[in-house]
């Protein structure tokens, strides 16, 4: 039996989607598997809780742990003692320093997660990172059998019906600049706002910035909103907890995806933008250059005027934009579901008795 442990299975979440996709693929391959979870969240077929897993786990089973945040001590101790083979899929952990000014609890948890990750080198038989960057981290911590297994992204989901009303409202002649991601300091939303403000001032007053993502870290979000208000930066939309159809509408109406994040283990929205043929500009940090490849524009400096200058060049040069989209399409082929799942299956078989 193959088990996948995920601390919390969230609907629409990149990790949650991957867990479900792996389960379905293994079932198609006639391989028995279950999802083990800790938190009672949204219902999903084939899931059990940790205590049930603990009762049934055998030495010839395989446990795949999706690691993205600190696990409770209780679980972590049990994890070490489970008799089966254990593989970690590492989705990366945001360093605690990013949160110190905004949320001390989260900062502490992130530091604890990093300590736990370091201990994990002695617990897991293999560790797979969703990007080369993640694998380098694992190798430096002494993990053995490290390999890259890119994150599974369900392309057909993005063909669903978008919110047409919202799309009509957004397609009003304005240039829409988009970023999608949790509103947390490591994603550097402020840098996006700086570049947007400069672009609006210098090149195009009829432009709009759309920031979509979970806004639970209120202190950070307040600071961003207060900044926009105080500096009179207009047409900045903060959108949180949107339905999927709204997210599709934002992507379909976007003219550019701008990412200034300083810490990413993979960065799914880059792939999403490529799917929607939205040109991508992203600051080169962590896994971003790896995920983006030669598709979009990767830059090394956050100077708002330089970023704005390149944005303007992109909007005014159609052939450049077309070439970029073509390159992004090629880049997407690396993330084909079938290819990744076949590789994953081969890897799983190596560890399955």
């Amino acid at each position: 039996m193959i088990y996948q442990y995920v601390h919390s299975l969230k609907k629409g979440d990149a990790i949650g989607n991957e867990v479900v996709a792996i389960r379905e693929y293994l079932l198609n391959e006639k391989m028995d598997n279950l999802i083990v979870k800790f938190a009672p969240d949204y219902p999903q077929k084939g899931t059990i809780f940790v205590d049930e897993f603990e009762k049934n786990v055998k030495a010839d089973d395989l446990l795949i742990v999706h690691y993205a945040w600190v696990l409770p001590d209780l679980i972590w101790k049990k994890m070490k003692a489970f008799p089966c083979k254990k593989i970690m899929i590492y989705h990366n952990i945001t360093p605690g320093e990013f949160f110190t000014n905004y949320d001390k609890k989260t900062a502490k948890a992130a530091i604890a997660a990093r300590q736990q990750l370091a201990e994990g080198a002695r617990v897991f038989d293999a560790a797979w990172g969703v990007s080369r960057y993640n694998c380098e981290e694992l190798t430096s911590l002494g993990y053995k059998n490290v390999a890259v297994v890119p994150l599974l992204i369900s392309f057909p989901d993005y063909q669903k019906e978008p919110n047409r009303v919202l799309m009509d409202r957004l397609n009003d002649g304005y240039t829409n600049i988009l970023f999608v991601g949790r509103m947390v300091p490591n994603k550097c939303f402020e840098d996006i706002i700086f570049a947007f403000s400069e672009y609006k001032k210098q090149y195009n007053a009829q432009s709009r910035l759309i920031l979509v993502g979970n806004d639970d870290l209120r202190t950070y979000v307040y600071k961003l909103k207060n900044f926009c208000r105080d500096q009179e930066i207009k047409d900045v939309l903060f959108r949180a907890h949107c339905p999927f159809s709204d997210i599709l509408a934002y992507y379909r109406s976007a003219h550019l995806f701008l990412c200034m994040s300083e810490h990413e283990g993979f960065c799914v929205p880059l792939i999403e933008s490529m799917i929607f043929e939205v040109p991508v500009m992203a600051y080169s940090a962590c896994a971003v250059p790896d995920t983006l490849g030669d598709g979009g524009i990767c830059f090394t400096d956050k100077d708002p005027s330089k970023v704005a200058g390149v944005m303007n060049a992109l909007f005014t040069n159609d052939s450049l934009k077309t070439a970029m989209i073509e390159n992004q399409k090629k880049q997407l082929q690396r993330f084909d579901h079938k290819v990744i799942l076949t590789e994953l299956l081969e890897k799983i078989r190596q560890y399955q008795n």
Partner: protein
Amino acid sequence: MSEGKPFIKNSVWQEQLESVAQNAKPAETDYKKLFEETDNFGVDVKTIMGDIGVQPDSGTDNTETSKSESMDTIGAYIAHAQRIEDIISVTHNPPTSPLRRTVKRTLLKVLCWPTRRYLIPQVNFNTDIVRANQEMLVLLAKINKSDRDSAEEAKRELLKANQKIDKLYEKIEELEEKIAFMEKSSSSEQKTSDKTEEKA
């Protein structure tokens, strides 16, 4: 950026865009400094709106939406303030002096330790309410301004339209004169041609 370090990382785009980035007009605003100076206080309007059953607006931020959002926000602030029946009088620290706020909080912690469980949330709450009131005033000012602006814009548009109409009238008059002139000249030509025919 250190000198000589390319702005564009991927070679595919470097040739086309590097010079664009390097020749960009430098920004006049020190965004980083301004952002550091910005406070991170706010009232969780969405939660309050949820509590009182008001649906937040979604979609774009055009004038109408932002206006309705502002009105919703004000409504939520008022509801927020009304819910607090026992606001204690604590001196408010302006949001621009975090040091003073920290000192005051520390003093409260030390001096009022038996009651701090009650006091500190109240202090936070009061700060939020003062902040909310300030935001409310800003929003009202913005709404008034936008109304004023739109009225002025309408006036300007009206003036422009009137000027256009005036010009059109002028053109019409010109045309009428031309037509009249042409009619006159054609009738006089007709007369002369008639006369020559008679003579012939």
